[in-house]
């Protein structure tokens, strides 16, 4: 036996169109048994007879028992179909495929709870109604032409979009829709007198089900009234929206005028599309202006009907209803204006990548030579960022070796809204000239031989991007240690478990990746711009001038430890003069000092050639600034930790390496200031050390590491 589909219609004195509507229903070409169920709430015009004539099951109720929600629940109960199509007594299926199209909507996905179709104006409808209907149903399905499946996207961006325009998802009109029985059993109509379809649409969508717009499921349905009655109809309609959904129409002279102007403008465009031009537009637009003004008035007054005396309410209503009753309908938590909700919650880019997976890459054949195409995903920067200077230097080096690069700036926190060409200009003018184009965001990401993540956020963003033969992670520092124990330290550390092969800055960082995380890792060592940071001997140095790298933005520079040490030194040696630099933040120094803020390299180079000692403290990988001071012949105080000694050797060889205590920092500076001969010898050794570490060498190390990785298949990744 064929499955049953039901067409359900609530009826009250609907003889005008009911015969036409039921004839069209009976004429449907559908491969199921068709059942028609009518609930008549006391017709006196023979509607029940018409229905019976078309073979409908007619159930009669008292007029006072009728409510739009309750009666439709009754229709669902009376119907035997798994799918129940609702129309109203004045809606006529426009084609014999109407019902088939509604049923086709359920085939789009197993979670489709409801399908709806467009309403077409009847031939006598005026242009305002025609224009409005055309606009309304063009919201779905690419201008109303395609089948369109809607679901609620529960990401912050999706919910924000929903809150901006809920109707796009919630709209459901039981003038023309079809409900799946399984869905109704879980989410029935609310027992409300009006707006039951909007409520059902909202509840189905918010319960996580899909809803479908099908352009072929068309019905003829429109109302046309004289202007005064239009006002009354809108009064009724909007009073109901207030009673059931709590909607209050915003108004104000400017807002309302602007709204009316927009609607008239839309009618004008629609009329022009229909070939109405010139003076012919004038009467039509005058009618539009009157219609939309009355509609606005009906909406404004209707949603404030509670403030109007009952007798007046009855006179303003087309139904003659004088009541106003706010129904206790559960509100939508998603649409609650008072809800704590940040649509721009920045950690969504991490959240959506869980559960943790390995990097996705395309199959490729091993390769150990030839020019490569390389994408770099980088975070936004500030002028003076050492990490970015290194990245752009490496890009320049690889470009010089024939590789083609592109840079993608991944900015989940919205720190920089400039377009790609402006970002590129800044790289070229304020960092390093590169050929690579720069893109803001990842939308333009193209397939490449190798893609680099360059910081932990970018590792999350790059993980699943398609089209990459190999994905590598340029790890310049132990970033999880930048944070107090918390979400960020966890998110950062996870990136070491994604299966990226790493190229670390310094052997120390590579060791951490290998020993602690079991990651395949190579290393590179930064170069120094020896043309800018020229060597200067003792001559010309200002006794007692100390240059201190005080970049407060980076906690790992331990700025206050350095300043505490200098305070100790100031007490020991009152004659010293201190220059702090490297920070965009206002200085906080416990003794009078000169603040240089962020300066271009040439200014800093001049400072390094003039000062007698430099202080750079590195709690993790050692700073490029330290190398630049060493290149300039400036004797240096650094911290004595594995991250530094792995590069600079034992204390006193290339720099005074001190324990992380203020007195130890002061002692280190004392040694440099007291014994200038030893300090100068140390500075010469440091210069020789830096001279070996050129950017050409760093570029070669990166290229060797890339080809080494490309030549070998990936090792199974340890998941500890």
């Amino acid at each position, binding site marked *: 036996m064929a499955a049953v589909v039901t067409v359900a219609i609530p009826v009250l004195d609907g003889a005008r169109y009911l015969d036409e509507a039921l004839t069209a229903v009976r004429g449907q070409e559908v491969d199921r048994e068709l059942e028609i169920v009518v609930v008549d709430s006391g017709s006196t015009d023979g509607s029940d007879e018409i229905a019976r004539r078309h073979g409908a099951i007619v159930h009669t109720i008292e007029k006072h028992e009728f409510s739009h929600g309750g009666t439709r629940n009754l229709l669902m109960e009376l119907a035997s179909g798994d799918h129940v199509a609702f129309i109203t007594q004045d809606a006529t299926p426009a084609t014999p495929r109407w019902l088939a199209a509604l049923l086709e909507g359920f085939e789009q996905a197993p979670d489709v709870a409801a399908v709806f179709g467009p309403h077409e104006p009847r031939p006598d409808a005026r242009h305002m109604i025609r224009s409005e209907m055309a606009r309304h149903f063009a919201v779905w399905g690419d201008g109303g032409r395609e089948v369109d499946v809607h679901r609620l996207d529960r990401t912050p961006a999706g919910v924000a979009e929903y809150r901006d325009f809920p109707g796009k998802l919630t709209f459901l009109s039981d003038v023309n829709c079809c409900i799946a029985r399984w869905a109704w059993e879980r989410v029935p109509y609310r027992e409300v007198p009006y707006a039951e379809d909007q409520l059902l649409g909202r509840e189905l969508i918010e319960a996580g089900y899909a809803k479908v717009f099908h352009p072929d499921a068309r019905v003829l349905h429109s109302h046309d009234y004289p202007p005064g009655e239009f006002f009354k109809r809108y009064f009724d309609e909007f009073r109901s929206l207030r009673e059931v959904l709590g909607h209050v129409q915003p108004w104000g002279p400017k807002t309302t005028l602007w709204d009316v102007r927009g609607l008239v403008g839309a009618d004008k465009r629609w009329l022009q599309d229909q070939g109405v031009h010139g003076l012919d537009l004038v009467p039509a637009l005058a009618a539009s202006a009157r219609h939309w003004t009355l509609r606005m008035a009906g909406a404004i007054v209707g949603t404030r009907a509670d403030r109007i005396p009952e007798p007046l309410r009855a006179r303003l209503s087309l139904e003659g209803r004088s009541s106003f009753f706010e129904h206790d309908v559960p509100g939508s938590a998603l649409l609650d204006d008072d809800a704590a909700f940040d649509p721009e919650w920045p950690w969504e880019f991490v959240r959506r990548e869980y559960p943790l997976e390995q990097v996705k890459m395309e199959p490729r054949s091993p390769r150990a030579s*030839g*020019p490569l*195409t390389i994408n770099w995903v980088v975070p936004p920067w500030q002028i003076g960022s050492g990490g970015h200077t290194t990245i752009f230097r490496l890009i320049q080096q690889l470009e010089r070796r024939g590789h*083609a690069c592109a840079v993608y700036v991944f900015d989940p926190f919205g720190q920089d809204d400039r*377009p790609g*060409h402006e970002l590129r200009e800044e790289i070229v003018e304020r960092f390093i000239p590169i050929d690579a*184009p*720069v893109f803001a965001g990842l939308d*333009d990401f193209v397939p490449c031989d190798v893609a680099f993540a360059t910081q932990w956020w970018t590792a999350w963003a790059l993980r699943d991007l398609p089209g990459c033969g190999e994905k590598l992670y340029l790890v310049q520092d132990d970033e999880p240690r930048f944070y107090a124990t918390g979400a960020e330290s966890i998110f950062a550390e996870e990136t070491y478990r994604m299966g990226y092969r790493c190229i670390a800055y310094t052997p120390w960082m590579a060791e951490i990746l290998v020993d602690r995380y079991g990651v395949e890792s190579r290393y590179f060592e930064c170069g120094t711009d020896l043309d800018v940071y020229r060597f200067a001997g003792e001559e010309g140095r200002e006794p007692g001038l100390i240059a201190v790298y005080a970049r407060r933005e980076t906690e790992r520079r331990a700025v206050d430890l350095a300043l505490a040490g200098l305070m100790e030194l100031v007490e020991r040696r009152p004659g010293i003069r201190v220059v702090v630099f490297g920070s965009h933040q206002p200085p906080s120094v416990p003794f009078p000092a000169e603040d240089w803020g962020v300066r271009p390299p040439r200014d800093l180079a001049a400072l390094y050639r003039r000062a007698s000692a430099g202080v750079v403290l590195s709690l993790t990988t050692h700073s490029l600034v330290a190398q630049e001071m060493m290149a300039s012949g400036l004797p240096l105080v650094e911290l004595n930790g594995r991250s530094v000694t792995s590069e600079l050797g034992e204390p006193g060889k290339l720099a005074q390496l001190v324990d992380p205590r203020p007195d130890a920092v002061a002692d280190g500076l004392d040694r440099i200031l007291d014994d200038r001969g030893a300090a100068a010898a140390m500075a010469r050794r440091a210069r020789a050390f830096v001279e070996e570490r050129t950017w050409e060498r760093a570029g070669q190390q990166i290229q060797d590491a890339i080809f080494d990785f490309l030549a070998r298949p990936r090792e199974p990744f340890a998941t500890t």
Partner: protein
Amino acid sequence: MSAEPQSTHESEKALEEALAERNRLWAELNRERADQRELEYLRRELKMIHSSTWWKIAGGYGRIKALLRAGLERLRER
């Protein structure tokens, strides 16, 4: 006897050249895409400027000035 190494060498050379050409095309495609984004950005900026109140005021002022100038010209011609 030496034909094989020669052939390998030639193949490698051809491969290098093909890769270099592919890189050139890849870079060109990226540059074109970047130019396209810049163009889109500038169009958006221009649209924003044109729809700004200041532009409308200044644009209206410009049109009035042009009309007056045209009117004066006609008067002078008479």
